[in-house]
Structure formats: C-alpha cells, structure tokens
C-alpha cells in the first residue's frame, strides 16, 4: 500500500473514532476530541491532493483481497473536490455548531458524535469503489443526517427528519434492488467495470432513482425544503454542502463509470429532468416567505443544474460541473451559516423581518450578497467559471437547448437573489423586528463570510482545480 493510500484510512477512521470518543469522554475533555476530529482529517487532504494530482487516483484495497470479493477504496479528482468542500464547510460550520451545542455541556455529546459520524459517512461515500460499499456509506450518512436534523427538537424539525428518513430509506431500497440486478447481470459489484457494454436498463433506472431521492432531484425532492430549513444552522450548511452532493457524485459515477457507454436517450431525458428541477427550484425560491426556504429551493435548482452534465458528457463539461460543485457547495454553506446567525438574532427568518439587515448584521448581509453572486454566476466568481465551461461544452457539442437553458439559469437565480438583497438592504425598515437577541460570536459571521469569499476567489484562480478535473471520467467524450 502506498503511503497515500494509507492516508485514505485516516479520512474515514479519524472521524469515526472521534465519534466514539466524543460520546464516551466527560464534557471537559470532549472539546479536544471535537477540535481534533474536526481539524485533523482535513489536514490529510493536503498530501492526498498532491498524490491525486500526480497519479490521478489513489487506490486502496483492504487486506490485499482484490475486488470483486474484497473492498476497495478509490480517491479520484471528483471525490477530492467534494472532500475539500466538506472539509472547508465543516471547519467553517464548527464555530456555529460550537456556539449552539457547546461540547462542555453534557447533552452535547450525542450531537458531536453524530456530526463525526456524518463526516465518516460522507467521506466513505466519496471513497467507495464498489456499489454496495456506497450503499452502506449512504445509509450511514442518511441516519446521521436525520438524527442531526432531529437535534433541533422542534415539531417541524422532527417531522421533517421523519419524512427525510422514510423517503431516504425508500431511495436506498430502490438502489439496493438495482445493485442486486447489476450483480445478477455482471457478477461483480465494482463501480468501474470495464468490459460491460451497458447495464441492464431496469437496474440502472432503479439505482438512479434511488440516488435521485437522496440528492433531492425534482420531482423526488419533497423532503429537502423542510429538512434544510428546520435543521439547526450548521447542520443545514453541511447538508447543503455535501450530503446531497455525495449522492450526486455517486449518480455521476454510476452513470459514467459502471459500463462502457451510458444510454443516450436516457441522458437527454435526465437532462430534461434536470432542466425541470432548475426551473421549478428557481420559481419556488422566488415565492418563499422564509429565507432558509429560499436557500433550500435554490439548492434544488442547482442540483438540477448539475444533472445537465449527463447530456453534455464531455471533459470540458465535467470540469465545469465539478467546479460548480465546488463553488456552489461553498456558497450554499456560507448562506446557511449566515441565515443561522440571522435566525438567532432576529428570532425568525421570515423575510418580513429582514429589512434593515445591512445595518444590523452587515457581515451576514454581505455574505448573502457574495454567495448570491456565485449562485447567479456573475463574473469573476467561481460560479461563472463552472458556467462558462459548461456553456463552451454545450456549444461544442451543438447542444443549443442546453446552452440557452444554462444561460437562462443565471437569470432565474438572479431573480430570487436580488429579491433577497432588495429586501435586506433597501426596503424600509418600518416593519422589521425590534427586539434583537444577543449576537453570536463574530467568528461565526466571519467563517461564513470567508466561505463566500472563497467561492468568489476560486473563480479568479481556477487552474489547480480545473487541472485536477482535467482527466475527466471514463465513458466521456473528450
């Protein structure tokens, strides 16, 4: 095993062991476990990035037992990008989570355990090199996410968590059924199966539908708005940044890597579903009366946008979509963290109470504005880079419908972003809330702002990420 491969173990086992330790330790010692767990595994990403840049993927096989019987892990460029989003969003969400679930309190043990288990699950999902391992990882992630949403303890959060659990398990069931059918067809559970022409269509559809439920692609998205908007702020941030993305990455991998050639008509059909999600999410976001719901529906819109990679399948499109994953993940996490602070100070996130925000909470308002710029895809932000590459890819393949759709997506995002900006900064503050609760520590606002800034700045210096993603995925047109 190469040294880099050994580091892969750390990605999963550091958060896992911290989870165990966090619930066992007395409250005074717990904070060290949390800090360690939260900050240690991101450090592993630095050597791993260099390894991936050199070798394009880092592979590890457990116990020397080769697949299809053994379990293997693989870290490729796409997984690395999402791991970075996870790391950055996780670190930025730490202050906010710390404030709300202080590790020194006895009852916070479960929260931090769950937080670490979620991290374990997400990392595992990104590393999985076979289909069943992916199932286990996604289940772990789902359970942890559901429990984290439920830590809010309000009726709305509990109901949203319940619905998420039930629908997610439904998705998993369809996925596993698909996996079984794949095994029946090919005799192997590996994700990358050279030599297989095409997967059994039923199996493919089942797996993809299951993953669509988890990634909240319209019309299977119904659990997301209430789950994100009623979850505690830092939880919503992490979920928006990575949990949905992990399922989406799995979706892409199964589509492109499992068999030689994905079916073309299905690609167009899925592209249309993505388009529908894009439009539905944007319209719904414009109409919402609560800030967190606007951000949640915006996520639905952007997940649909990411589905457009399927009909456009080229290396350039892959780079664009991967970059968009990065920029959007950072921006969304920033928005949810800012929204969390707004809820704490104003007592609610109803948009009626937002006017005058630029005076009361200027950092949060600025964060929302910056993140909004990335979502709209205005140059020179990270959102623009992803959009431009997808547009070039669409132009090159002659996909005029997709080109126009992508261009219009910016307009649609602009509608709800500017609505929020107008409300927070320019509406008269007559009807705003008058009683303000004590402000959370400044570091929570600064963490959110840093994420938003990062989302914009990577647009100015996209080369490292683009080069990493340059290898494309197997099964793509160059």
């Amino acid at each position: 095993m190469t040294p880099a491969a050994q580091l892969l173990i750390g990605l999963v086992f550091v958060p896992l062991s911290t989870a165990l330790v966090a619930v066992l330790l007395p409250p005074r010692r717990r904070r060290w476990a949390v800090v360690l767990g939260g900050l240690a595994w991101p450090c592993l990403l630095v050597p791993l990035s260099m390894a991936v840049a050199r070798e394009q993927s880092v592979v590890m096989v457990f116990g020397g037992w080769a697949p299809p019987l053994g379990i293997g892990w693989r870290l490729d460029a796409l997984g690395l990008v999402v791991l970075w989003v996870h790391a950055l969003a996780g670190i930025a969400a730490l202050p906010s989570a710390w404030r709300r679930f202080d590790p020194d309190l006895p009852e916070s043990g479960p929260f931090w355990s769950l937080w670490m288990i979620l991290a374990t699950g997400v990392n595992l999902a990104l590393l999985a090199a076979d289909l069943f391992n992916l199932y286990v990882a996604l289940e772990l992630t789902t359970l942890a996410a559901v429990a984290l949403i439920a830590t809010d303890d309000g009726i709305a959060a509990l109901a949203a968590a319940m619905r998420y659990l039930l629908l997610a398990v439904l998705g998993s069931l369809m996925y596993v059924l698909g996996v079984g059918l794949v095994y029946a067809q090919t005799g192997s559970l590996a994700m990358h199966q050279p030599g297989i022409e095409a997967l059994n269509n039923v199996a493919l559809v089942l797996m993809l539908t299951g993953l669509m439920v988890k990634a909240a692609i319209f019309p299977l998205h119904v659990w997301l708005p209430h789950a994100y908007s009623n979850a505690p702020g830092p939880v919503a941030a992490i979920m928006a940044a990575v949990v949905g993305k992990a399922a989406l990455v799995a979706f892409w991998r199964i589509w492109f890597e499992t068999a030689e050639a994905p079916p073309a008509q299905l690609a167009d059909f899925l592209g249309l579903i993505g388009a529908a999600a894009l439009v539905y999410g944007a319209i719904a976001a414009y109409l919402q009366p609560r800030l967190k719901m606007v951000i949640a529906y915006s996520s639905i819109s952007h997940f649909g946008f990411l589905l457009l990679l399927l009909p456009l399948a080229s290396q350039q499109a892959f780079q664009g979509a991967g970059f968009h994953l990065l920029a959007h993940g950072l921006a969304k996490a920033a928005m949810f963290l800012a929204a969390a602070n707004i809820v704490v100070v104003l007592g609610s996130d109803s948009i009626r109470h937002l006017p005058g925000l630029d005076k009361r909470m200027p950092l949060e308002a600025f964060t929302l504005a910056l993140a909004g710029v990335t979502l709209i895809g205005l140059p020179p932000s990270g959102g623009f880079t992803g959009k431009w590459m997808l547009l070039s890819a669409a132009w090159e393949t002659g996909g005029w419908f997709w080109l126009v759709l992508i261009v219009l997506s910016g307009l649609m995002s602009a509608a709800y972003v500017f609505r929020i900006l107008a409300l927070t900064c320019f509406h008269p503050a007559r009807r705003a809330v008058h009683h303000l609760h004590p402000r959370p520590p400044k570091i929570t606002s600064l963490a959110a702002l840093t994420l938003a800034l990062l989302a914009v700045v990577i647009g100015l210096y996209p080369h490292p990420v683009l080069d990493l993603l340059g290898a494309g995925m197997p099964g793509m047109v160059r």
Partner: protein
Amino acid sequence: MTSAVFVLVAAAIFGLGVHGLLVSAHIMRKLLALNLMLSALFLLLIVVPATIDGRPDPVPQALVLTGIVIAVSTTAFALALMVRLFRKQGHASIHPDIDPRLLGRKAPSKANKTAQGDDR
C-alpha cells in the same frame, strides 16, 4: 419456475409497501410498510442473482445480511424518532406524501393537525 413465483410475490409485496409508505399518515403504518418493502427486497436479492456452479452464491447472502442489520437499526431509530414526535405533538402522524384523496380514499383523520413542517 419457482424463482418466478418468488419474484412476483416479492414485487407485489414491494408495491404494497410503497403504497403504504407514501399514502399513510400514521408513522407506525409507514414503518410497517417500510419493513414490508425491506422483506420483499431481501427476498428478491436472494432469488434473482445467479448461482455459482449450482451452489448458492454467497455474495447476495452477505448483502442481505448487511441489509437486515441496517434495516433493524433504521427501524429502531425511526421508532425512537416517532416516540419523540408523539411526545411533542400529541399524535404520531405526518402529512402523507401522496394525498390519499387523490386515490379516492378517505382523508387521514388527523389531516388538519399533521405536521408538514410549519413555518416558525
């Protein structure tokens, strides 16, 4: 031939489970439906994959075992969540995902009081 029977039965049970999951309002019913679906799934997984040299293929059995473990823990967790929700709101129902009235059935008795996820 017998495997075809198993597959059909499993598919039927699965379908019943999906219907129950999406249309019921009471969480207990949803969980029961979910478990029905899980059983159907495990049945399908055992039956569908091929055998190796006439002997049962161990891989799907390993998959099913894992699946059972996950199913048990998920059900336990869901039950705990249900109890908590019951304690908070006085009943254990949530808005069904597909309104039963669309399918010509009665509206759930607690339809007006179920938690969709209210605005705070």
